[in-house]
């Protein structure tokens, strides 16, 4: 085994952090959605890596990864639909302008 587990973990952590940064820093709602996809996929890398290295006998990790894909796909679909709805009503996708919950 040339590639140890923690390398995958580092890659996944890096990817998560990039995604998180994107979510926190992007002003465009689409960008934030893309960051969320990155974070989800980082988790998927972790799931697959832990399955492959720690419990290859059972397929729980793969199943969770597949669930995460499916949920991410649904999430992307709902998120995009919300963004389109917001855009249609407020004529913007800049997340700072959409502060309807401000106290």
């Amino acid at each position, binding site marked *: 085994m040339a590639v140890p587990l923690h390398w995958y973990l580092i890659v996944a952590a890096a990817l998560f952090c990039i995604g998180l940064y994107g*979510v*926190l820093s992007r002003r465009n709602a689409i960008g934030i959605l893309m960051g969320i996809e990155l974070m989800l996929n980082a988790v998927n890398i972790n799931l697959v890596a832990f399955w492959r290295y720690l419990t290859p006998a059972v397929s729980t990790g793969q199943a969770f990864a597949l669930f995460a894909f499916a949920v991410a796909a649904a999430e992307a679909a709902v998120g995009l639909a919300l963004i389109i709805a917001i855009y249609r009503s407020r004529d913007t996708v800049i997340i700072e302008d959409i502060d309807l919950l*401000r106290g």
Partner: protein
Amino acid sequence: MREFFFNLTWLIPLFPLLAFFVIILFTNEDTKKHHKLSHIIAIGAIGLSWIVGWGVAFSAFTTPHLGEHPIHITAPWFPTGSTVFNIGVWVDPLMAVTLFMVPFVCLMIFIYSVGYMGYDTHEVDPHYSRFFAYIALFAAGMLGLVVSENLLTLFISWEIMGLCSYLLIGFWFEKNYPDPKQITPRQAGLKAFLTTKVGDAFLFLGLLYLYGQAGSLSYADTLFNEEFLHHLAETPAFPILGGWSVASVIGALMFGGAVGKSAQFPLHVWLPDAMEGPTPVSALIHAATMVSAGVYLVARIFPLLHIVVEVEHHNPAMGLIAFIGAFTALFASVIAVAQNDIKRVLAYSTISQLGYMIAALGIGAFVAGAFHLITHAFFKALLFLGSGSVIIGCHHEQDMMEMGGLKDKMPRTFWTFVAGGFALSGFPIITAGFWSKDEILAHAWDEFLHEGMVSWPFFVWLLLTLAAFLTAFYTGRQISLTFLGKPRGHHAEHAHETPNSMTVPLMLLAVFAVTLGFAGMPEEIVGHGNNWFHGFVGHEYPATPLSLLVMLLSAALAVGGLGLGWLVYGRKPLAHGEMDPLERAMQKIGLGWLYEAMRHKFYFDELYHATVIRGVIKLADIFFYFDNRWVVDPIVNLVGRVGRLLSDILGIFDLRVIDGLVDLAGRTGASLSALSGWVDNVVVDDIAVNGTGRVTGWIGARVLRPIQTGRAQNYLLVALITVLALLGLYLAYL
């Protein structure tokens, strides 16, 4: 026929009772029509009673062995616990002879009253109807008393008569006299009622005692129950009475009733004053019947008294009775000598003659006493009615000193009065009074011969003999003063004979006053078994032996007394305003004070006034003072005052303490509520409620609102920081 009359006996008192109610309710107006109806009803009723009464009496006279087997018809009246009071009639010899006398005398008096009360004249009494109602009620009482089969109905009748005597003595209640010391009819009625009540109280006690012993008051259970009588005679009464038997005590108590009713010493004072009533009343109540009721009672209870003699040979109660009777006989006749009122002389003579009867019963002369009761009723009614006739004839003059010479002006009245007076004196042979009085004296003499010189029968005999002489003397005086000589007053000068309704009863009564004595002549004269009265009434008692000495003595006394009376007052008639010769004679020998005392009835009225009446008034005063001045009222006032004081204190306490407390509580409450108001306003409203609001608002505005940016990224950032912080903590402590 006998059965028929015996079964009707109960009607005898009912007729006059009915008459009373009819008159008092329906014919009570002061009109001639109602007057006529009233006296027709009353006389009719007493007439019916008389017919039935004599029917019963003669049936009884012809019934053999009535004494051993009295007729006894009774019905239950009311039950009391385990016993029953009966009401009914009792026919025995004593009742029969009394029933022979009472309704007849009543009838005569009723008829006489029509004339006396001035029917159909301008002097008619305004209460004419009422008078007949009262005398009818009175007759009902007397007849009820005679026919009673027990002592309870006897007592009731007795009290009815007491009431009637009050009503009739006070009949002229509106009368007043100029002299305030002269007793008015009102006072006389009250006096009679109260005085006899004193005696009635004793009678009632006697009845209660007897009832307590026997559980019954009927004659059959008590007075004619040998076994029971023996028991009473053998049982000693209260130890304090020194061995008196129960029979003696009961007898003495019931005799107390007779003392009141029959005006015996010391309760004799009411009878002379009862002369304030109309004269028929005097005849009816105070001569013939009511006062006889007392004697009748003593004769009734004679078995009770006599049984003690049989058991112990001596009865102290009878000694008492004999002594009181004999003393009264002499005492009253002494007073009668000095009276000038024609009716008062007769009143004292009645007291005296009743004393004879009582004394006779006291010495055991049952037959003689009963005999004298009957004869006396006839001749005393005659005398009273005669005096009433004189009074009417003399236009209501009653003072004998104003009369005189009426012999020719009122011949019928004179001759009948003489017959009555001679009977009263005991004029020998031809008058009823002689035989009955002689029998009493003979009996006393006989007892004295048995008992010896210093025994009480001797004193009784002595007193009675003296009284007999005085009786004859004052009768002679009365006849002489009233009828002989010349008129001493203008009333007597214009006197006239009274109407037939008054003189006919006098003549009828005179017949009896003369002849009745022959029914009881001693066997020594008429032959053995021919003393009808004794054979009928007194079969169980031995006949009184004739004593020639006594008979001659009493005859001599009667003739001597009458003669002396005539000598002193009749032979040389008094002039108008002349002093009584007896008074003059007594003053001469230094006994003027005695005559004065006699005229004033030995000052008994004054004595009773000074003792009993004043005593009662003083006692009432003491009670008044006790009540109002000394004890009761002061206590009440003290309690009141203490109560007021206490309430004052309590008032102050209330004002100061309670009110203060209440005020304090109020004020405290007010302060508290002010405080709580302040707390509410300041603490709750300002600090708590508004403070909370303000703080919350401030926090919201300054803290929470800025946090709520509405930017999702900010929130995420916070979440990230939090996660990182928690992670840091986790890592640091793990």
